[in-house]
């Protein structure tokens, strides 16, 4: 007698048996639910709780449906509303038509012309880009990035004097600027806000206390309206918005930029 485990006959269950078992289970569950419902129905308190719960669920569902209807369903319907695209028929012969080819060619020429015009806006000479949100700069020469690093720009502070009669906003202006002047060993002439900020009485225009040497670094480049690109003694603040509107750089970057940019070079600040 040769027999192994594989040869033992297992009782094969017919799918019909499985189905009847499932139906039986469902019927049983249904009976149980009916039974509990009847129980609830016969108990006045449970009946009240059941009704109230049902009402609350219904109200919540209604509110959710109305909410979804206005917030999500209608906008979805708007986006999916069908409308046929008005398409013109494509006729193969038209592609061989000379007038047709000419028009396509003209369009291509117009596009090329515009593309050349647009590309010509980027200066071939050196220019500087300053990002006031991240406090970073990028220096370009011959349309290639040659140096990038940290800088400090306007702090967005609105200073009001103690009497409340005057206000200053310390922000770096945005847009396209150009180098008006290149200065070596710049001297800082302290403006009025510099005294107001420290609670010092404002001195006369040419008072000695207005002149400070060495605080702007070795070089400065004027952008007009009193705004400068200069060095700083507060190097730990580079990369942060802390200035009164000028652009501060560290000594090495300042020197590189000073040597690369000329009077008239463009500075783009955003």
């Amino acid at each position, binding site marked *: 007698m040769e027999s192994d485990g594989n040869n033992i006959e297992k009782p094969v269950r017919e799918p019909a048996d499985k189905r009847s078992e499932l139906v039986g289970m469902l019927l049983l569950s249904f009976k149980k639910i009916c039974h509990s419902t009847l129980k609830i129905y016969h108990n006045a308190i449970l009946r009240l709780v059941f009704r109230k719960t049902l009402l609350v669920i219904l109200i919540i569902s209604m509110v959710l449906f109305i909410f979804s209807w206005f917030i999500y369903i209608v906008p979805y319907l708007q986006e999916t509303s069908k409308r046929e695209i008005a398409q013109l028929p494509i006729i193969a012969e038209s592609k061989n038509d000379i007038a047709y080819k000419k028009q*396509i060619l003209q369009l291509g020429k117009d596009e090329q012309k515009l593309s050349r015009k*647009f590309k010509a806006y980027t200066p071939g000479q050196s220019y500087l880009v300053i*990002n006031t949100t991240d406090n970073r700069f990028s220096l370009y020469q011959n349309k290639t990035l040659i140096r990038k690093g940290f800088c400090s720009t306007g702090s*967005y502070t609105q200073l009001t004097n103690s009497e409340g009669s005057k206000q200053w906003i310390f*922000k770096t202006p945005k*847009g*396209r600027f150009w180098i008006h002047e290149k200065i070596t060993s710049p001297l800082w002439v302290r403006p009025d806000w510099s005294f107001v900020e*420290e*609670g010092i009485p404002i001195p006369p225009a040419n008072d000695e206390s207005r002149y400070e040497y060495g605080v702007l670094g070795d070089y400065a480049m004027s952008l007009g309206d009193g705004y400068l690109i200069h060095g700083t003694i507060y190097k730990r603040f580079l990369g942060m918005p802390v200035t009164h509107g000028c652009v501060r750089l560290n000594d090495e970057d300042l020197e590189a930029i000073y040597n690369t940019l000329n009077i008239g070079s463009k500075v*783009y600040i955003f």
Partner: protein
Amino acid sequence: MIYYAVMAVLSPGRKIHAINNEYSYREPESSKTDRRMFSDSIFVSVNREKSFYQARVLMAESDSICLSLNLSDSTAILEIEGVAVHNAKISEITVSKVFNKADEYSVTSMRAIPFTIGNDYSTIRKEPLMIKLAPKDTSEYKPDILPDTASSEPVNYIFEMTNGTRLYVYQDLGENEGDRMALYMFDLKDRLRNIRYNLKSIINLKVPEYHPSIKISLAKADAKIIYRALPRHGLISVFW
């Protein structure tokens, strides 16, 4: 509710009609154009590029910081007088189907003119001004506290263009649940605002105006840079 839905569903059709009417091809008296070429694939692609350059040249001639969105290569470029000053990668793009349903030539012509920002809604301030009162004398003077440069605030905003289009800019969502919640609330506020607007029109027995949208997702830092750089009524050109 049904009336609201019917009126709202009618609005995209009106918008398509309006775009087709406003920007459709107007034939010059001197020459005749074979309109069949408007559906030629070469014409369509060259015309799209031409309109993008047209819009960018117009922006370059303005004295302003502008935004160029190239949706086909997923880039957002900040430009000042035609010079690209910042490039950002767009991670997600969704464009209203209305633009595909309207006439191709009309939509391209619409894009040849830069979109002007009319209004904006944002989770961040355009200019984060800090108010400071000057000390009365030196004894009251305190040196400035270092600014908080950690960007914890979520960056999501909507530019409502004067031509009715809306540009939604969302920051990329990482693992931060707070950012997800902030975006959900921001989106919900926008939807509620739209409902209020739609209801106003519907009460007056008018079909509400539909606003086709362009939704993009950017890195948080890029989204912030673009929002802060663009002026209140900045210009935007779009290519796809």
